């Protein structure tokens, strides 16, 4: 009966969400009572969706194939972790996960938001309920995860083998936490537009939510990239695949939102732009989650390409996104603009950041959607590949990274660019020196690589420069500097760490693109090959039986340039239930670099072996992890800070607007 109770819980949550949305928008002015009722409703939605989700997990874990979803996506022999992750490794189940995270965020607002103005809280929760109602309704009517299958089959169809991986257990929940977290910013934006009121309390609320979502999204994207890297067997870590772009666009917009919300929280400026970005970011999140479901995009992520479902999704997206923008168009003018500032100031730098990020979103959006539109309208199939994205995106990011270190060193309201530049001279000199040193040592030919390295080092050292500057390192006794460093607000630390992380990621990307080597060859056991100083010996070939697959295993011994040897095991699995093969690449990490080995298709009496040496590739994900750590650090710093304007020495009167 647990399945049916789960089904009922989902439907009851849908009913509560629907009535909450209608009631919330009708009575949001009625003060405390409506806010309290909606808060209770948000908590109830969370509990009920949790019950529904638990019922699905229960059915998967006990291999209850009378649940159609479990029969289609599970198998009794599957390891427990993949039985659980299989719940969201399909369209219907991932919808429930999406809604679960949505209502979890709603319940968090309801719980922690008791001090918000009542009308604001009521509107936020009503919008949140509207989203829940829309997507729970979509799930119930077009993709019901609780559909039954009687009689229950003896065995299930198993999950797509590529998805039977620990990466899938973690990647979607993180990514969804990021996507869905932006719904809070969206709801706050809608609330601001409906009520026509927007103040610093609003910004104080929006920024941590943005930070939390952005942090999860960063981790989710990094995780997904690493998953693609080791599971898809090609050693690529970013493909500019439409689905990857779909997760990258909200990240870019979210990064912009993070910075503009900062301006708004501290300086009460950029209000309308922040509202606009909140809507854009969540719209892109929706696009990211659902465009892949509409059947328009075909990729590993396409779970279902049922045309009705696609049409419903598109209609839903059009209503939510179009509705929000229409509201924005009608109401934005009624919002009061905020504080003024000089072009050269922290605010100005953040606007520059926003401009570049927004343009980058535009470029990626065009590259992703243009082929789809062309295909849909003209029937012409073109593919916009990596060269387009590398060119446009790279061109936009380079200047952004170039000015990035200046931002944190500029004062609010008006700043002195010369003094900021002076404080960065050390970082610039160091970056140039290190780049020349590395380029000379590695003997790279004239190419873009040294420029990329320079940019990476500049961003990384520039991020540290702020800390060095604020701790007066070298200008006062070391112990005093240490005390100052520790005493710096955590927000200063998190800014430095996040920017340092970007530099690290850039370095990883540049190094691995410039110095990657590869070898494709045929090997028999006993033979060996060589790559970038590593000797790879093919020891033996075995066929073994896994829990739900058969595996061809290649055992290799790798001798590193320094003489150390390590064992590597690459295998090709054939899953019993589906007959589908997957490749499991062998990856060995040497310092920050990795050796990536893939056992290819068997040929007559021999084996295709692909080996890549990827220098400093782990820096790409380490940088992302640093950014996420910075996000969490910033979240612990909830102390309220105003961005105090720095006054020009003698014109105190100018502090007034």
């Amino acid at each position, binding site marked *: 009966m647990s399945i049916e109770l789960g089904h009922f819980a989902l439907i009851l949550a849908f009913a509560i969400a629907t009535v909450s949305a209608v009631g919330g928008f009708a009575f949001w002015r009625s003060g*405390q009572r409506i806010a309290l009722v909606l808060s209770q409703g948000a908590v109830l939605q969370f509990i009920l969706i949790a019950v529904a989700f638990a019922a699905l997990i229960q059915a998967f874990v006990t291999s209850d194939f009378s649940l159609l979803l479990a029969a289609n996506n599970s198998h009794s022999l599957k390891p427990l972790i993949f039985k659980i992750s299989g719940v969201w490794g399909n369209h219907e189940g991932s919808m429930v996960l999406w809604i679960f995270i949505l209502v979890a965020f709603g319940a968090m607002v309801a719980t922690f938001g008791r001090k918000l103005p009542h009308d604001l809280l009521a509107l936020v929760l009503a919008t949140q309920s509207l989203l829940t109602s829309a997507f729970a309704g979509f799930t119930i009517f077009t993709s019901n995860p609780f559909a039954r299958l009687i009689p229950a089959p*003896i065995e299930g169809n198993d999950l797509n083998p590529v998805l039977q991986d620990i990466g899938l257990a973690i990647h979607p929940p993180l990514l969804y936490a990021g996507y869905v977290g932006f719904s809070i910013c969206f709801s706050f934006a809608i609330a601001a537009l409906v009520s026509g009121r927007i103040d610093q309390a609003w910004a104080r609320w929006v920024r941590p939510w943005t930070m939390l979502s952005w942090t999860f999204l960063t981790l989710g994207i990094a995780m997904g990239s690493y998953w693609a890297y080791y599971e898809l067997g090609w050693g690529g870590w970013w493909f500019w695949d439409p689905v990857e772009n779909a997760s990258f666009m909200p990240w870019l917009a979210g990064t912009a939102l993070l910075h503009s919300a900062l301006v708004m929280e501290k300086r009460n400026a950029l209000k309308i732009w922040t509202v606009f970005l909140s809507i854009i970011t969540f719209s892109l999140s929706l696009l990211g989650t659902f465009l892949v479901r509409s059947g328009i995009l075909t990729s590993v992520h396409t779970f279902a390409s049922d045309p009705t479902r696609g049409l419903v999704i598109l209609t839903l997206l059009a209503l939510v996104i179009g509705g929000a923008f229409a509201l924005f168009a009608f109401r934005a003018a009624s919002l009061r603009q905020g504080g003024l500032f000089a072009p050269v100031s922290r605010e100005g730098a953040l606007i520059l950041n926003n401009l570049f990020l927004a343009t980058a979103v535009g470029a990626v959006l065009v590259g992703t959607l243009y082929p789809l539109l062309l295909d849909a309208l003209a029937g012409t199939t073109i593919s916009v590949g990596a060269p387009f994205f590398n060119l446009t995106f790279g061109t936009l990011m380079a200047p952004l990274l170039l000015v990035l270190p200046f931002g944190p060193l500029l004062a609010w309201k008006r700043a002195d660019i010369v003094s900021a530049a002076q404080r960065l001279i050390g970082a610039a000199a160091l970056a140039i020196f290190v780049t020349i040193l590395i380029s000379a040592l590695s003997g790279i030919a004239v190419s873009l690589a040294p420029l990329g390295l320079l940019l990476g080092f500049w961003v990384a050292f520039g991020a540290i420069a702020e800390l060095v500057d604020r701790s007066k390192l070298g200008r006062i006794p070391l112990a005093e500097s240490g005390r100052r460093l520790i005493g710096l607000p955590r927000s200063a630390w998190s800014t430095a760490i996040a920017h340092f992380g970007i530099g690290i990621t850039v370095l990883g990307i540049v190094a691995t693109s410039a110095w990657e080597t590869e070898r494709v060859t045929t090997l028999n056991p006993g033979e060996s090959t060589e790559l970038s100083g590593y000797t790879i010996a093919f020891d033996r070939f075995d066929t073994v039986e896994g829990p739900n697959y058969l595996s061809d295993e290649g055992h290799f011994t790798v001798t590193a340039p320094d003489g150390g040897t390590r064992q590597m095991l690459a295998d090709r699995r054939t899953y019993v239930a589906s007959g589908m093969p997957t490749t499991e690449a062998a990856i060995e990490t040497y310092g920050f670099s990795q050796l990536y080995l893939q056992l290819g298709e068997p040929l007559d009496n021999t084996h295709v072996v692909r080996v890549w040496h990827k220098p400093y590739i782990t820096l790409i994900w380490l940088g992302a992890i640093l950014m996420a750590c910075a996000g969490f650090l910033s979240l612990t710093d909830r102390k309220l800070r105003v961005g*105090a304007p720095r006054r020009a020495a003698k014109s105190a009167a100018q502090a007034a607007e």
Partner: protein
Amino acid sequence: MPRAGVKHSGPMLFWFIAIAVTAIACAALFYAAGPRAVNAAAPELDDANSHFRLVLAGIDADVAAGKLGEPEAVAARGELAREILRLKAEAGRMVAPPHGLGRMPLLAGLGGIAVLALGLYAMLGSPDLPSQPLAGRDDAMAQQIDLDAAIARIEAQLTANPDDLRGWTVIAPAYLEMGRYADAARAYRRMMELGEPTADLQTSLAEALMLGADGAGSAEAMDLLRAAAASDPNHVLSRLYIAADLTRAGDYPAAAAAWQAALALSKGDEPWLPAAQQGLAVAQNGGVAPANAQEAEMIGQMVGGLADRLAAEGGSIAEWTQLVRAYLVLDDTDSAQAAYDAAVASYPQAFDRGDLDTLALGAGLTLNGAQP
């Protein structure tokens, strides 16, 4: 479905729980609005005030910690004061809407929730279906016929009673299905000994013999098939096998006649018809699939067109792979190598080339692009 009807209290119990859950949820919503609903005066302004007190405390703390200079603190307090004044002015203008959330709309909402939830579930749900976890289905699984166990049981019976025609009749096709051709042949022989050697039986035995010999015919199989064809003038399967075996043996005139004999029995919509027509064509053409000169020319033109286009405009790696494969199929290794080299020039990264390298390696082309 051994357990579906066991408990008729299932749906009753379900509805009891569902209604209880709905009632609890509605009560929770009702009381959330209830007793605590004191009418705070201008709560918005209160909120704002507490917000500003926090900001002020933050500025003082920063000054005390030396993170903020006194002039900056004065400027920040000044900005704050302006913000407070603005908000006060705004609050003064705002007319608080007198109508609160009344009891009627609340009750209507709760009623709506109950009706919507229970009604929708009644439409979509299956309250009478129990869960059927794998552990609970074990007994059901045991009832499933396990092919191995069943065969072992029949074999045991047949050892005890080798004259059981029904037993052999059941087991022979099962053997054939499992690939145990020798056992299948033994079973069919025993059936022919025990009963009439019908055309079907003879054909099945011949089939088991041929499958056991990896498709190669034998004199015994041929004799059986001829006997089957002779005993039943309308027996198609035996005639098809005869024709196929004659074709395989290279006796094309006889094969052509045999195919025609089989085709003569056709009613025009049998699934074997295309295969038989193809077989006839092959036999009439001396064992070679009729080369359609026009078709070959068309293939050549298509390959040439693709090659020209790729050379002129470039193309996707899939198109290059298609071209290399086409040359390999046409046995034109030199062109295949040239096409492969051109593809490598367009896609220098092995990562982009995907399966093309595997194709080339398998065909023995030179893989100069594989060098790092």
